[in-house]
């Protein structure tokens, strides 16, 4: 028998780590070299990137095609305002706590939506997100249809708030990326990818399919809810129609599909493309969405592996390798 070796890192992943460290340094320096506008945009970028990573984990790895992730953006946003304004929690501390609230809602939600499979799971999650929107719009304490304003940050100086939000966004973004990477490389992550490839086969090898999916669904709700809170810490004003808008999920889906489903690099590439297009087409609101939709349709037909998939296939680059490769050493 030839000696074998399981390879889990690549040259690209070492280069990638160095690049990531450089990028991190630049991001940490941003408050000193950039202006408030750049920082706000960086927060927005991070928020969309995390939403995309979360949706990618659901759809690209767990095979759960949710069209209802806006439920958790909205729940996180509202939880932030209730925690910070009504319960007196520090607004920055309230952001991850809001993620926990979203995760707590995800458990009972899962008992409903997990009854659907495939395409009907997509519509079912959408319907449940509408239920949350209508509940928020009919609750007096949440300001009904007009929503509420985050007042807890008013006493803070504007610079303090902006710097705090930026630092928090950086932390959330980095933590989300690291968590997804570590999770996918773990034993649990291997089980998840097995489930994605074949449910019956992974079940027969001892993977608990239901628990694996449920765990991912709740973790993703936590990440999405935290991001929702971050978004509304940045925006300060929340309303049910905006917070539970399908657009959150639409942007996310376009980012992941264009960038590359089922890879960690794909959502990063997708978010960059999304922002570049948005900055160029800022004056053509509807056309911008039509273009994104058309791009996603073309991507699904012509390059289902996304932009990053094309690159990775051509040059065999993986900055975040989650697979195990068997190499014959001799």
């Amino acid at each position, binding site marked *: 028998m030839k000696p074998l070796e399981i390879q889990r890192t690549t040259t690209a992943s070492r280069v990638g780590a160095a690049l990531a460290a450089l990028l991190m340094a630049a991001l940490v320096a941003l408050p000193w070299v950039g202006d408030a506008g750049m920082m706000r945009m960086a927060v927005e970028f991070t928020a969309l990137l995390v939403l995309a990573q979360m949706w990618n984990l659901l*759809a690209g790895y767990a095979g759960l095609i949710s069209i209802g992730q806006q439920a958790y953006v909205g729940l996180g946003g509202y939880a932030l305002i209730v925690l910070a304004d009504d319960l007196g929690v520090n607004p920055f501390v309230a952001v991850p706590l809001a993620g926990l609230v979203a995760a707590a809602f995800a458990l009972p939600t899962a008992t409903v939506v997990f009854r659907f499979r495939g*395409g009907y799971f997509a519509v079912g999650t959408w319907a449940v997100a*509408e239920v949350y929107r209508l509940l928020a719009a009919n609750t007096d304490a949440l300001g009904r249809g007009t929503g509420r304003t985050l007042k807890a940050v008013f006493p803070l100086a504007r610079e303090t708030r902006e710097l705090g939000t930026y630092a928090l966004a950086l932390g959330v973004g980095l933590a989300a990326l690291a968590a997804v990477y570590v999770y996918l490389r773990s034993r649990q992550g291997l089980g998840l990818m097995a489930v994605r490839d074949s449910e019956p086969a992974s079940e027969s090898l001892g993977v608990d399919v239901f628990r694996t999916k449920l765990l991912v669904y709740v973790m993703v709700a936590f990440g999405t809810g935290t991001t929702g809170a971050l978004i509304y810490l940045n925006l300060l004003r929340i309303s049910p129609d905006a917070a539970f808008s399908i657009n959150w999920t639409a942007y996310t889906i376009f980012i992941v599909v264009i960038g590359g489903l089922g890879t960690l690099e794909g959502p990063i590439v997708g978010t960059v493309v999304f922002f570049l297009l948005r900055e160029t087409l800022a004056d053509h609101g509807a056309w911008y969405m039509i273009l994104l939709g058309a791009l996603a349709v073309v991507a699904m037909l012509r390059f289902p592996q996304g932009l990053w998939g094309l690159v990775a296939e051509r040059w065999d680059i993986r900055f975040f390798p989650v697979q195990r490769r068997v190499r014959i050493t001799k």
Partner: protein
Amino acid sequence: MAWLDTVVQGVLLGGLYALFATGLSLIFGVMRLVNLAHGDFSILAAFLAVVAVGASGLNPLLSLVVVAPLMAVLGYGLQWLVLDRLLGRGVLPAVLVTFGFSVIIQNGLLETFSADSRRLNPGGIETASLPLGGGLAVGWFPLLTFVVAVALLGGLQLLIGRTAIGRAFRATSDDGGTAALMGIDTRRVHGLAMALSLAIVAVAGIFLGIRTTFTFSSGPDRLLFAFEAVIIGGLGSLWGTLVGGVILGVAQTVGAKLSPGWGVLAGHLVFLAVLLLRPAGLFAPSRRVDT
């Protein structure tokens, strides 16, 4: 009496929801495709009717003669050119592509027709009502909608049960591969199913546009109501879909009567309740339905 009136209105509204649901259910039955743009196609049909009425002065009900075939051709084309290439690659591509359609249609309508709300005017029938005595009255138009829904469902049942194309639908639904071996052109069958689905949803869209105002973004709600009617009735049951639509319609009108903001929400909650108590729906056929 006021409550009885509310329930009657809800039952008739259910006819409209059954119209929306039938097309959704049909293509799911034939090729396991969930069309997330289903509601948006109905609104597209309603806007096409606005154009047809504006150009020719046709009655909106008559504009169906133009709009329904147009939507059928669009359905056949989309199935042939795009959706059929995605079947067999798992659920995800088709779901995401139809979601892309949904966003494209909505924003296309916004760009073409602005965000103004529209309504189709059939010239009087929408306000006329039929007194039933005891202060109870039903509108002629909701009644017509219900009758059309029942007639369409009956027609569809005959089509599926008694004709060659219906047999091809059922064979493709049971096992596309074997159907193809028996000489059925499954690609054509898929195209025809989608054409029929969009023609029916065109009828639904135009009836909706006469009944109430609509905007470019009215589609997703229609998809959700259609989906809920299908699930309440039970997947694969044609008449169950009608009952599902009726239950949803009654829940919405009763909810709206309790509190104006609760109409749609009450419908969603009844749907969730049915889902938790009877996951297979009320009238699911005993045949196993793979999703």
